[in-house]
């Protein structure tokens, strides 16, 4: 730094062998003696494992005994051990930001077998680190306070589980659900694999627990409109759609539905995948939580046309819970952590012309069949075709939209098992012949292979081949499935009454908007991206935002629940800490140099920059800044600067690299 007394610099250099990882390629002894002769280097040592306790002790002792005021460790990636050596320096009384690492493992010894090249490159890295650390300044560690509440977005099984875990730990939770009821896809299913538990029997107790939990505020028919702030301090706006029924006054007697002037339910019920019907005032299913109906403004005569005898109002009577004049409302909350559990949608098979979905009425999606099998569904659990007849022969097509580069290259993970489950249920309820046409049967879960074996024993046909065509067999709705039976080695045509398409799980249609709202990323297939696929599976690029369930990737209920609890634990760890340390490499604006041109504001990927209108300059919120440096590079007047990345520091580092290459 300008004005710094360079003569007082005493740099300690440590070269790590990392066993033979580094020392097997780089001559660490020669590197050390060479480094000892560089300007301002007070002492240089090499050691077998710098990250070990004795290695750290070495640094600490030298700082104290030799008055070192800068430390360079040439070892592995700073992603791994920078915190280790920063802590060691701090323990010896040195500011932790006066430490710099030179990565001579991942960037040197692991990428070449040429010992000479490796040595030269190690010299360059080391020289760069030494020159750079000379320019470092002591920085203060910064902490922010954390809001003790959490937000859970999405009321499927993942959101329910995460909310209950956090609430049971005594935290206040806001649970937001877009639909009129929580429950998600799981509430649509009849049975769950491989145990064949009744889905409602295991889900509804949890739904009720959500409703009754004193620490959970449940906001259904609502969606998150905006999120501002950063880890520990998010300000969230939630848009609440009008239900036209007052949630405080309604007791869930459902008399309004009976009283509705439409005596017959005649509008497609989305919860039943359009197979069943509903009235303008309706609940998705009997155990809905909250058990409060919702009025659809498009089909309600009073709301749409302003003229109706209002049988619902009469039925509600003195409670007067029906409010036709309800308006959309926005509620605001402050939370410390957010768990995104927005789930999946099923693939629309009508884009595959050769399966005839949407063209032939007896071609169904698996989700439609789930509703037909469900006692609460449109046929009260009877598996019948649209004409009311019971299918005698049923074909199940696996991998519809999955494992297909034309649609989704990935395996949806759950379809094999749910197709086996459907095969079992179809056989149990109808005795029909069932043909499962598959590419590979994938059953890698606890009790899954055993379930496959059980379904085989029940007499279900298994044909290894991807179905190529579904065509009408005659004019009576019968269908022919054409499939290459790859094990038999011949092409077969199977006549069936019903075709069930085991459709893929895919990201929600608005996943990209949701991603932007929460400042997280999507992977190539559109699911939300975890911070690390192995070591940070529920974290995201946004430190206080976690993901769980099928919004992160196709998964089954057991995995979803486990992930939801993991996300809850991570959120809890943040909230319970009370405060959180910020990375020091944030950017800041030198007010005197800022021209107020606003170039930086839209470029910031973290919305960390705002404009101070009074002073007409940009201001960076250090709690939001992630230190990406975009604004620093873009600022036309050089007013945007960054801790640990000042021009002097970067130039010194580059000089070090260049002079020794």
């Amino acid at each position, binding site marked *: 730094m300008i004005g710094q007394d360079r003569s007082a610099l005493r740099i300690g250099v440590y070269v790590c062998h990392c066993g033979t990882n580094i020392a097997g390629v780089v001559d660490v002894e020669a590197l050390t003696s060479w480094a000892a002769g560089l300007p301002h280097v007070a002492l240089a040592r090499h050691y077998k494992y710098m990250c070990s306790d004795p290695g750290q002790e070495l640094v600490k002792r030298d700082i104290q005994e030799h008055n070192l005021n800068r430390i360079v460790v040439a070892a592995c990636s700073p992603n791994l051990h920078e915190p280790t050596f920063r802590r060691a320096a701090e323990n010896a009384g040195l500011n932790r930001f006066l430490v710099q690492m030179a990565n001579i493992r991942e960037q040197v010894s692991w990428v070449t077998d040429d010992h000479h090249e490796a040595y030269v490159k190690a010299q360059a890295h080391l020289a760069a680190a030494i020159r750079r650390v000379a320019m470092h300044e002591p920085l203060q560690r910064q902490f922010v306070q954390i809001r003790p509440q959490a937000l859970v977005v999405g009321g499927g099984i993942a959101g329910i589980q995460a909310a209950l875990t956090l609430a049971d730990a005594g935290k206040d939770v806001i649970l937001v659900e877009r639909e009129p009821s929580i429950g998600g896809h799981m509430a649509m299913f009849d049975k769950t694999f491989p145990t064949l538990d009744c889905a409602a029997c295991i889900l509804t107790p949890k739904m009720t627990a959500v409703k009754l939990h004193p620490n959970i505020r449940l906001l259904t028919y609502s969606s998150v409109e905006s999120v501002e702030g950063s880890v520990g301090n998010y300000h969230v706006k939630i848009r609440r759609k009008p239900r036209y029924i007052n949630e405080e006054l309604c007791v869930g007697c459902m008399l309004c539905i009976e009283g509705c002037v439409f005596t017959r339910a005649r509008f497609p019920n989305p919860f039943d995948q359009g197979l069943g019907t509903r009235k303008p005032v309706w609940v998705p299913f009997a155990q809905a939580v909250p058990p409060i109906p919702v009025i659809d403004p498009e089909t309600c005569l009073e709301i749409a046309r302003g003229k109706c005898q209002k049988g619902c109002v009469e039925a509600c009577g003195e409670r007067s819970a029906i409010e036709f004049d309800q308006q959309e409302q926005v509620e605001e909350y402050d939370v410390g952590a957010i768990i995104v559990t927005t789930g999946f949608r099923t693939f629309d098979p009508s884009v595959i012309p*050769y399966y005839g979905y949407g063209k032939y009425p007896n071609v169904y999606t698996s989700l439609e069949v789930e509703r037909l099998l469900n006692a609460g569904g449109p046929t009260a659990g009877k598996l019948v075709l649209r004409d009311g007849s019971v299918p005698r022969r049923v074909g199940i097509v696996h991998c519809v939209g999955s*494992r297909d580069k034309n649609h989704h290259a990935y395996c949806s993970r759950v379809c094999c098992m749910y197709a086996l489950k459907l095969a079992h249920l179809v056989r149990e309820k109808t005795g029909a012949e069932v043909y499962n046409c598959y590419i590979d049967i994938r059953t890698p879960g606890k009790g899954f292979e055993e379930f496959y074996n059980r379904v085989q024993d029940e007499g279900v046909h298994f044909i*290894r*081949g*991807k179905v190529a*065509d579904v065509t009408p067999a005659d004019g009576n709705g019968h269908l022919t499935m054409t499939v*290459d*039976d*790859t094990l038999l080695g011949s*092409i077969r045509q199977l006549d069936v009454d019903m075709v069930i398409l085991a459709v893929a799980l895919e990201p929600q249609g608005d996943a990209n908007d949701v991603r932007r709202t929460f400042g997280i990323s999507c992977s190539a297939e559109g699911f939300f991206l975890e911070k690390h696929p192995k070591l940070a599976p529920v974290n995201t690029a946004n430190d206080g935002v976690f993901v769980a369930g099928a919004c992160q990737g196709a998964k089954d209920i057991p995995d979803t629940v486990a992930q939801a609890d993991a996300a809850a634990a991570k959120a809890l760890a943040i909230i319970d800490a009370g405060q959180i340390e910020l990375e020091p490499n944030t950017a800041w604006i030198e007010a005197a140099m800022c021209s107020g041109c606003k170039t930086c504001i839209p470029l910031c990927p973290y919305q960390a920059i705002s404009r101070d209108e009074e002073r007409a300059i940009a201001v960076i919120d250090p709690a939001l800044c992630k230190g990406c440096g975009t604004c620093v590079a873009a600022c036309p007047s050089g007013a945007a600067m960054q801790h640990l990345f000042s021009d002097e520091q970067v130039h010194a580092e580059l000089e070090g690299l260049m002079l020794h290459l």
Partner: protein
Amino acid sequence: MNPETSDGGLAVLEEIGKASDGASPLGCMQCGLCAASCPLGYAMEFPPRKLILQVAAGNLDRVLGSPAIWMCVGCYTCSLRCPRDIELTDGLWPALRDRSMQAGHQPPAELQETFQNLFKYGNTLGKSPRQRLDWARGLDVPVLDLSKERRPVDVLWLVGCYPSYYPRNQVVSRAWARILTRLGVSWGVLGAKEKSVGECERMFGEEGLFETLVEQNSKLLNEQEFQTLVTLDPHAYRALHAFYPRHGAWYPVQHYTMFLAERLEQLRPGLVKPVEATVTYHDNCCVGRRCQCFDAPRALLEAIPGVKLVEMQRNRDNALCCGGGGGGMWLDGHIVAHGGHRLSDERIGQAAETGADILAVSCPYELARFEDAAKVKGLEGRLHVRDIIELLAVSLGLEEVPAEPS
């Protein structure tokens, strides 16, 4: 029997994959979608899935001598559906045909005749290049022969072999010449210098011959000044659009349906004479399924007053091939002999099911194939086969009315 070995098999697949636009056949997961989607897969000893499996197992010899090698009709259904995006139609098949001939296997006799024509005359019909312009004899609009008089033109029309020589197609060529003239664009043809574009040669496995043709045609085309190449042949379109650029030869090319659809508003005021008929359209494979151009031909048909357009059960992406591509035009005998059937016979039945009076087509092979199929199926006189160009010409008052549907 010796135990199977896979020695060298994967290397062959890798090599084939590298020469095609799609993903490597090494990624085949043996799902069988190709085999069961193939309109002739049931009759093949080795449908695409088994070809890959056998080659991977080191049994290349076994497949190269199989009649299956000569049963692909180039419909692209397997390629478009393949979940692993493997280019089977114009990747795997031609590569294996090439290797089959190099290994000394003879192609079916009927195809050998075609080969002889190709080598001797430069076209599949065995006609002299001097007869290239016979179609224009007595035509009432001037035809600019760019091989004699080089001039910048808007449209260089590559007439193609069937439209040049085959009598039924010559009718369409004359109608097309009148439409081009009516549009007021300047246009020319290459006359006696025109050569085959080479699509069928390539699909036969004659990659070397194809490359020679690319070289010769590029030289010819580079001498000319034009805005757009237009062809009536979807196969030629596919070759110029996708295969030529692989050899560094890129030209702005359109199939005539694309060219006309862009100029529909200019045509529309002239479309005055009604064609009172129910029409169903057969999507050709190269422009349709392979290049996903489905709306242009339909827009043209719907612009004709009187036309009632109806769809066959299988249409657009899912249309059934006429069986004429990939060499199928010259392999009907071989295909039927090995347990297959003529797809044109099946397809015309599907067209008849719609109750249409006219089966509209946009590929030179299809006129001959479907008119023949109509005879076989006893539909002659009930279901008329017409190129879209003919129907447009009638409506524009540029052509004699074809035999009216009853």
